[in-house]
């Protein structure tokens, strides 16, 4: 009798277990369906995020190319490859999330840098201008080659300002020796009102976004190189800076005051801007070949020594051809 009951109990238990396992099988399958969808979505998100992550890296490193495997993200991983020229970049991201794969293929192009039109060798845009030009300052709107010779492009004003009051102020407040040194369109003193509708603050922000080098307040002396004519760069100076014997090429955006001394040479465009007042001081044998733009509510220019502000179409064109922006246009995105 005891044996019979045992068999009955074991049999019943087996039967009930079978029923429970059967019922659970559907629950598990249902859960699998949901999890599978989650995995697929997660793999897609990782793959797309991988592209976004590397677009951000490419913004900072303008020569970034190659294969970058095993990047961990969101509990999954992705392999990424970047190939092609800046005009047709191909970014392929293959994500793996718990063995669920997803591939995103993105075609993009790096947008060209938006260059401002240079309208004079030295352009001053301000409500209050203060000039203290001494020594052998040389402001020349005639076209100059980078090598130093005369260029072939049309001359621009030596100094460009926003309105006739400013041009009258400049002409009336410089010594006759300096007046003769402001060469360019129309002859000395070449000081003219120039049409200007550029949003310099907005444009500066664009350059800052694409900056290759960011400098903080400080003195940058001999040996400091901020681009060359073969490899110009965008330099952003956030604060007051002193350059002594430094060199550079490209576009330099200075948000603050600037002191140039020693033998500072720059080829390209220098934009000095500030929300309120800015001061541009030059001492020594400095040369800016390209265009210099000073924008602020109050602008003060002080020079001693042999400061040169030369217009150079070649230097400006060099920037146009070689500088890379940090903005991308997405041509297509397969996900």
């Amino acid at each position, binding site marked *: 009798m005891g044996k019979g009951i045992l068999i009955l109990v074991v049999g019943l238990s087996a039967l009930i277990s079978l029923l429970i396992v059967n019922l659970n099988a559907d629950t598990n399958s249902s859960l699998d369906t949901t999890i599978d969808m989650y995995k697929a979505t997660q793999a897609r998100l990782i793959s797309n995020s991988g592209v976004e992550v590397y677009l951000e890296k490419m913004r900072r490193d303008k020569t970034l190319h190659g294969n970058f495997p095993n990047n961990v993200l969101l509990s999954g991983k992705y392999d990424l490859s970047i190939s092609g020229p800046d005009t047709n970049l191909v970014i392929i991201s293959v994500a793996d999330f718990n063995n669920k794969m997803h591939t995103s293929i993105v075609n993009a192009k790096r947008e060209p840098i938006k260059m401002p039109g240079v309208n004079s060798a030295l352009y001053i845009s301000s409500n209050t201008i203060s000039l203290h030009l001494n020594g052998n300052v040389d402001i020349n709107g005639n076209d100059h080659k980078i090598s130093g010779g005369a260029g072939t492009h049309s001359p621009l004003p030596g100094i460009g300002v926003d309105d006739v009051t400013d041009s009258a102020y400049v002409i009336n407040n410089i010594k006759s020796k300096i007046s003769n040194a402001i060469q360019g369109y129309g002859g000395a003193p070449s000081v003219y009102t120039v049409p200007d509708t550029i949003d310099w603050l907005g444009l500066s922000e664009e350059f800052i976004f694409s900056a290759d080098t960011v400098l903080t307040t400080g003195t940058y002396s001999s040996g400091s190189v901020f681009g060359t004519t073969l490899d110009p760069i965008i330099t952003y100076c956030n604060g007051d800076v002193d350059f002594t014997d430094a060199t550079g090429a490209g576009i330099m955006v200075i948000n603050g005051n600037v002191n140039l001394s020693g033998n500072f040479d720059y080829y390209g465009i220098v934009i000095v801007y500030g929300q309120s007042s800015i001061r541009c001081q030059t001492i020594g044998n400095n040369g800016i070949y390209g265009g210099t733009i000073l924008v602020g509510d109050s602008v003060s220019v002080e020079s001693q020594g042999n400061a040169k502000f030369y217009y150079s179409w070649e230097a400006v064109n060099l920037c146009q051809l070689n500088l890379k922006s940090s903005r991308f246009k997405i041509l*297509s995105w397969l996900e």
Partner: protein
Amino acid sequence: MNVVLDLLGASLVGGIVLLLIVNLNAYSTETKYAADADLRLQQNAKTLAEILNDDLRKIGYRYSGTAITQMLEKRISFYGDINNDGSMDQVTYFLGSKEAAGSTPNPNDRVLYRVVNNDTIGGPTLGLTELKLSYLNSNEQVTAYADSICYIKAEIWVETLEPVGGEYPFTYWEMTINPRNI
């Protein structure tokens, strides 16, 4: 006498246990059937969502013009290189009639047609009973202009193919897709 009483008692207990097992089995079968139907419902909804999701995300891929050419509640046509083979495809999705899905017990289900370059694929109904496509602009407001579409909201209603307890349980799936190429 005691033996007879033992036998009677054992038969009674045995009978009750047997009845319980039969009941449990019937309940289990019913539950299993409902669970199976529910699982298939969920799997069908997921399959439909995956198909739509996969294709709608490719709207405008490698196409330079306005990719969406038809934007109705139950029909969408668009251009895109959906198989990434370098040639442009024209894809149309539309919901068929109830009559076209007459082979299933469910009287409400319909076939979702997928036409790629004039090649129509109907496939099984998968219990789809309703499809609603909404076209949203960058502010996620409904727009009537194809060139201002940024998002497509797809809503699907899916029922079981066979009745469960005399009814057709349904599920609702909603997804808002942001095709990156439009």
